[in-house]
Every structure is written in C-alpha cells, then in structure tokens.
C-alpha cells in the first residue's frame, strides 16, 4: 500500500492551491491525484481572460492562471498522478484509485483534501419535453469542444440560463462565427456576473430575456428549433407569449452541482443547499482528517475565492498532520438568516481560527441598499452596508477572532435588513 501524509483528490485550482499551501506549512509527503490528462481543472477550458485580478493583480486567462500554480507545484517537487481516477475513499482514509500505469492502487493518507470541483446540471434535470435530438449541450461541454478539441457544435444557437459559463459561451460562439439568437433566463435576474452580461451579451447585441423559460425542443435527430415563453411570478409560462427560434443548437447553463459522489459514499455529511460537505473553520468535513475546498464545497463564481479557501484547507490539513488542530472546546454553528441562502463554513471552533474567520455566502434574491448584519447569539457583532446584492455574486464577511467570544455552543447568524432611508 502506498502511503502519503496528504492526498489531494482533484488537481484543479483548488487542489493545486491546497497542495502548495500544505507544503509551505511543512508537510513534504503530498500526492495530488487528477483524473484528467493535465492539471488545472476546469480552468484549462476557460480561455477568456479576467482571472486572477484579486490574487495576481493582473488579468489572466484560465490556462495562464492554472499554469502559475502548476509551475509552482512542480518547482516545489510535489508529486502528482495524471489520468488517475479516485474511485473510493474507504475506512481509515484509504483511497482506491486506478490508472493505466500503476493499475489498481490502495493509498493510505494521513489527511485527505477533497477538491473534485463540480459538474453541470443537464437537460434531464430540468425536464424539457420533446424529442432527444443531438444539439443540446451543456455550456461547459460546448466550451470543451470549442476551446480544447477545436470543433464547433452548431451554427444558430439559443442559450438557456444566464450563468457565467452560458454568457461566456454566447460570446465565444459569436466570435467563432455562430449566430446566438437569444439567452433566456427563468429568474427575473441573471445568474451571472454583471461584467459578463455587458461584455458577452450587450457588446454583441445578444438579447437577454429574463423571466423566460424553454417550452419545447423541436427536431427529432438534431435540434431544429426551440420555443421560449415568458413566465409569471410563480414561474409558470404565460400563454400567448411563446416565441419560436429556428436554431440547430441549445446550450444549457442552468447551474452547477458540486461533485460529491465519492464524499457521499465515504459517509461525509452534505449540506442539502450547497450540495457540498458540511465543513468547519478549517475546511474539515464531518470525517476527521478529511478536508474539502473549492467548487466541491460550494460553487464559487471567481477562481480567486477558490484559491483563498483552498489555501485555508491546505494549511489546516498540514496543521492536522502536525497535530496542531484542537478538537475539543466550544463550537459555534452558522445559520443563514433573512435573505441569505447558505453560509460556509457551517461550524466554527474559535480556538482554531487564524486571525480572521471568513464566512462565504449567497443571498437568495436581488437586493438594493441593504444592511448585512452578523450576530453572535443574537448580539450584533458586525454590520455592513451593501448597495447591491445578487445571488450570482458570492458575498464574504470577515470576523475578527477577538469578536468570537462565547461560552457554550452558540449560533452565528447573518441576515439582511433594509437600510432606513
């Protein structure tokens, strides 16, 4: 059986940052396992720029951003295995994995960092009636075909969902000579970053229809057209508002789901809202010594946030190996209040907080001029003014360690309140 202090499952930006940080914190014997042919994760197919503004203070493309981490990882001599799939995490942190060279491997890990990323929701998940023709792609699959394999997936395109990947693909397909006829979004607001709506749709005169949904796909072998209609407040289609688009391709950008099959089978507790593991301030899951970071925990919109969170996981996994984490003592639970959908981490042991506690969260609707208020057992400890809040943009709150004083088990809540005029 192979033995490592830390095994990182997934070599995307999350896994790379975590491995590097663990090494910087004094653990040498680290293995990164990646199922793809190269490191870098989803970033390898995101050839547009706009990455790294926070971390590197410059505008990079996805592959450039990934490259910085890959180079650093190699320079530090951290071991990695490509084209290697983790099948299972068993008892006592024994991982089973396979590849074509080593065959079937059992690997014993001192600590594990889960960073498997996420996958896209598909057509089936949103139950669109009609035939099942070719020409229906998730935006990410189309992105892979166009950017990595070098093939176009269609000529006349309608996009369902206004998540960032969908928006970016609207521009990409246009640049490649396809015609993007419309982007339809079920919600009354876009799920993507404002920046992407401007740069990917408005700049190319692609219409965005909010409060619209897909009624039907026409075509038996290949998509021949789609019908889109407006929805009312209850998201039910309004009769008479149907519009027909003659197109050969439908791209779906209808959300991402953390990739947690392995975690689930290992018995790790998941949060039904994020679909990711329940984690504490150290990014440790419900199984001791198993940490998680990046999109496998909750879907991030910017890779910079992934990097920050993953460093925390890497550092704490190293502390765990060095037995520096305190497991007893007081625990606070975080709880989303009015206007907040979820908060990560779910649990906080103040003794292990390093300087500040970072809470990441998403709001449940578009809001203007609100106060975001943090309370510890009902007592306000922080208040921030927010001009604009949207579900498509992750919010974060930093709380000083000194403010986390309490006796027994306690609750940290965050909620929104209308700012008085």
């Amino acid at each position, binding site marked *: 059986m192979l033995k490592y202090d830390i095994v990182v499952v997934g070599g995307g930006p999350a896994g790379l940052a975590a491995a590097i940080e663990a090494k910087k914190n004094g653990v040498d014997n680290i293995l990164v396992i990646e*199922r793809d042919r190269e490191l870098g994760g989803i970033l390898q197919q995101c050839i547009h720029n706009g990455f790294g503004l926070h971390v590197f203070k410059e505008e990079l493309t996805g592959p450039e951003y990934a490259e910085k981490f890959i180079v650093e990882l190699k320079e530090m001599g951290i071991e990695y295995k490509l*084209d290697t*799939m983790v*099948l299972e995490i068993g008892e006592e942190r024994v991982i*089973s994995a*396979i*590849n*074509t*060279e*080593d*065959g*079937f491997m*059992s690997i014993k890990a001192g600590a594990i960092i889960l960073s498997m990323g996420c*996958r*896209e929701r*598909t*057509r*089936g*998940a949103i*139950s669109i*009636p*009609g*035939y*099942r*023709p*070719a*020409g229906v792609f*998730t935006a*990410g*699959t189309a992105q*892979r*075909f*166009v950017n990595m*394999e*070098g*093939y*176009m*997936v*269609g*000529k006349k395109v309608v996009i369902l969902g206004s998540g960032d990947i969908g928006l970016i693909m609207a521009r990409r397909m246009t640049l*490649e*000579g396809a015609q993007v006829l419309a982007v339809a979004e079920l919600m009354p607001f876009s799920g993507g970053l404002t920046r992407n709506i401007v740069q990917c749709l408005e700049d190319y005169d692609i219409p965005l229809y909010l409060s619209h949904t897909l*009624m039907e796909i026409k075509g*038996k*072998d*290949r998509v021949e057209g789609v019908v889109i209609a407006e929805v009312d407040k209850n998201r039910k289609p309004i009769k008479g508002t149907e519009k027909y688009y003659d197109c*050969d391709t439908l791209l779906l950008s209808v959300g991402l*789901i953390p*990739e947690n*099959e392995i975690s689930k089978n290992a018995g790790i507790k998941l949060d039904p809202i994020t679909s990711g593991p329940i984690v504490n301030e150290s990014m440790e899951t419900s199984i001791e010594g198993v940490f998680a970071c990046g999109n496998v925990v909750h879907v991030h919109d910017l890779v910079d946030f992934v990097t920050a969170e993953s460093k925390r996981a890497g550092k704490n996994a190293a502390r765990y190996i060095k037995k520096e984490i305190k497991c007893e003592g007081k625990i606070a639970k975080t709880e989303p209040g009015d206007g907040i959908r979820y908060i990560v981490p779910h649990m906080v042991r103040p003794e292990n907080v390093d300087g500040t506690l970072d809470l990441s969260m998403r709001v449940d609707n578009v809001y203007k001029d609100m106060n975001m208020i943090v309370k510890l057992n009902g007592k306000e400890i922080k208040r921030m003014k927010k001009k604009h809040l949207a579900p498509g943009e992750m919010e974060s709150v930093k709380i000083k360690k000194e403010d986390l004083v309490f006796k027994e088990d306690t609750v940290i809540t965050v909620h929104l309140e209308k700012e008085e005029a």
Partner: protein
Amino acid sequence: MYDVVVIGAGIIGTFITRELSKFDLKTIIIDKENDIANGTTKANSAIVHAGYDAKVGTLKGKLNAKGNAMYAHVCEELDVHFKKIGSFVIATNEEEMDSIKDLYERGCKNNIPDMKILSQEEVREMEPNLSEEIIGALYAPTAGIVSPWELSVALAENAADNGAEIKLETEVLGIEKNEKGYVIHTNNGDIKTKYIFNCAGVYTQEINEMVAPRSFTIHPRRGQYNVLDKGTGSIVNHVIFQAPTKFGKGTLVTPTVHGNLLIGPDAEDLEDKENTSTTSDRIAFIQEKSRKTTTKVPFNKTITSFAGLRAVSNLGDFIIEESKEAKGFINVAGIESPGLSAAPAIAEYAINILEGIIGELNKRKEFNPRRKPVIRFMELTDEEKAEVIKKDPRYGRIICRCENITEGEIVDAIHRNAGGRTVDGIKRRSRPGMGRCQGGFCGPRVMEILARELKMDIKDIVKDNKEAYILTEETKQNKPEEVTA
C-alpha cells in the same frame, strides 16, 4: 440467396435470429436504423411480467408465462442483466381488492407460479416506502426486470457469432414475390430470400401489405416515462403496479437493473408512428399518478424522460402466423406489451411455424449459446480490478465519471459483433452517459474513441440516428490551412 430474412432488429427480430442461428440456415437480419433495438425495444418499462395479466387462451397469455420461465436461462447464457425481483399490484380500496382477486384467478388459469395476495401488514413489511393508503396487494415473485436493449444486442451478437448476418441502415422499401421466394428492395440494395419474418414493430402493417392485402392494422400508442438518478431505485424493492380501474391501468414504479428508478407510462393513441417526443402535461400526469403508489419519489433527481410506442393491432392479440396470401412470409405483429416478456417464447413459436413450412430443421453442431463475457469494471472486486488492468491497461482509464466506465469497456463494446457505432449505441451497451451528467464529461471522449476505433472523422460520429450529427465544423483555429495554388 438467403434462406431467411428477418426484418426488424428489435427484441423480437433479434430473438428469432438467434433461434435461427441454431440451425443450418443462411440468415440475415436487417433494420432501417443504424443500431440494434432502436425502435420500441429501447423505450419501454423493461419488465418481464409474471403473466397473470393476459387474457386466458390468448397468445399473449400463453407466451408471456412461457417466456418468463425462459428468461433467467437465456440471460445467463448471454451475460445480460436480469433480476427476478417480483411484482406487486397494489389496491387502495375494496373495489381494487376485487380486481386484484380477479387478476389472481386469471393468473392461476395462466399457470403463474407462487402468486399470493398480501395483507396490508405484509405489504408494509416488504415495501416500507409505499403509500399509507394501500390495503393489500397481489404478489407475483416470478416477475423480473431486464435491460431490453442489452438483451437485443447480445442476441444479435450471439446470432452473428454463430454465422447470422446483420445489416443495419437498410430500410425495406418494397417486396417482390417470385416463384423462388422474395426479393426485398431496400435503400441498400436488393436481398433475395426464401422466407421472411416480418418483425418491424409499428411498421409490420406496411411490410405485410407489401406482399398481401390488409389483414390487420397497427396503430401507435405512446407511453412516457421519467428516469431518476442511480441509487433512487432502492425506494422500492419490487415492480409496483397499480390495480386496474375503470380509468385505466395506472402507472408503475420500478427499479431498473442498474439501480435507477423508473416511473410511467401513460397511454395515448397517436397517428404518427415516429412520434416518440415527451410532453409536459403527460409527464406531469404520470408524476401525479405515481403518488398513489408512493409519495417518496424524488423528482428533483430526474435525469431524463423518454417515450415509447406500442404497436397495437386491431385484433387485440399477438399476430404470429404465416400470411394466408404469401407463402413463407411470417408476420410477427401487434407485439405490444408483454412482448418483451414473451419474446423468448415468441421466437420458439415462430420457428415452429417455419418448421411447419419447410419441415424439420437441421441443428448446427457448432452452435455456441454463450457470448464472450462482458467485463463490467465496477462490478469487480478490488483484486479482480487489479488483475483486469494488468491484462489490459485500458481498463485503468475511466471515461465516464458518473458510472465509472473504463476505456476498455468502450473499446470492447465497439468491436464485438453487433458493436456500437454511435454515442448512444455505446451508452446502451456499456453505459457511459447514462449517469447524472448525461454525457457532459464523457461525450467528447466517447466520440474520440469511436472515431479512433472505427477510423472515422470525429465530425461523422452521430448521437443516435443517422442525421443526429454532433459537431458542425472545425473552429477557425483548428481548420486545416487553406492550400493556395
């Protein structure tokens, strides 16, 4: 000149072809589609019914019970998933209890073994997730579930292993009768034969009328389904039917052999024999109906919906007979449910008809009933996995991340007799793309492997049917440099 041409490569045509391959006959099976089992056989409830349902004395009644008894053996021979999980017909009131008792009586007359009427407590014990309203159920332990297209493909492969020919993308356009037999005109050339089995599903009427005047009609009756994610299948342990009422048969809830949950179908008479589209009102209808069985179906875990067309004849029973007007032309028509369950018995019955025409058939000595076992990587133990990868490293590369399907399995599915040549064909054989991501990750990889193994341009790889192209052209950057003179 062939001895026998089988028209239609659904479960019926492939079963008959495999039976034929046991004899010294020059046999070919043809289908208009580019894969085996692309008609009704790819879209149904996949249930091997016990056989209490069919009217006493009908062919349906006789052949269902007989077919059911043959299933375990043939699936073992061909290494196909089949599970005898038993079925319930549930009752929620006295009237439904009565109709269950009628079914029981009918089942006894059809010689269905080991049936039992269960009390409310017994139902609850065996199926804790069913609705509180249920007061009893008919239990038939011999009912099973199967993977219909897997079986069809395996039958075709085994028939081919034993010398039968397979010709796909070959549509019968007309049939000419002459003194020696028949000339079948297809888009793919003429085929001469002495005998024909007409197993064309919803098109058996049209094929029959190419050689004989109208003797039956077939119309399509559509049924729609939801399939839920793997793991959800454990909500129920048996196939759960609802008792028939004057409003119809109700929907069923069942696990599939791969651990998914299937709910459906409804029944809707159509004109169009091609209309396998789903509609939101009908999907909503089956979802609503399923609540009578259990409220525990997690519809948010739906991974896809689909529809199938039953070939319903005006005569109300299977039609398996030589045409009165055309010697040596045998119709196997009106094979609606329980056609899948009855298929092994239908094939035997059909061969008997042929023997009635030509006399006793010569057995082929070298007939091998088994096909090369399929390696299903994730079903192996850790030691076996290690062993398999050592022998063929391609089993060490996972292509489908949801179902953990390896490259080795995909390559094998391509190169077998009756191998897959489309993305969906591979999906039906070894399951990449059947999972939660529905091919989002593995689709491009499967296309790459298909193109490589079949020496095709990746742009010519289709999803399913011939016209279901996936890629349109190279991106600007990837286009080969234009050669200037």
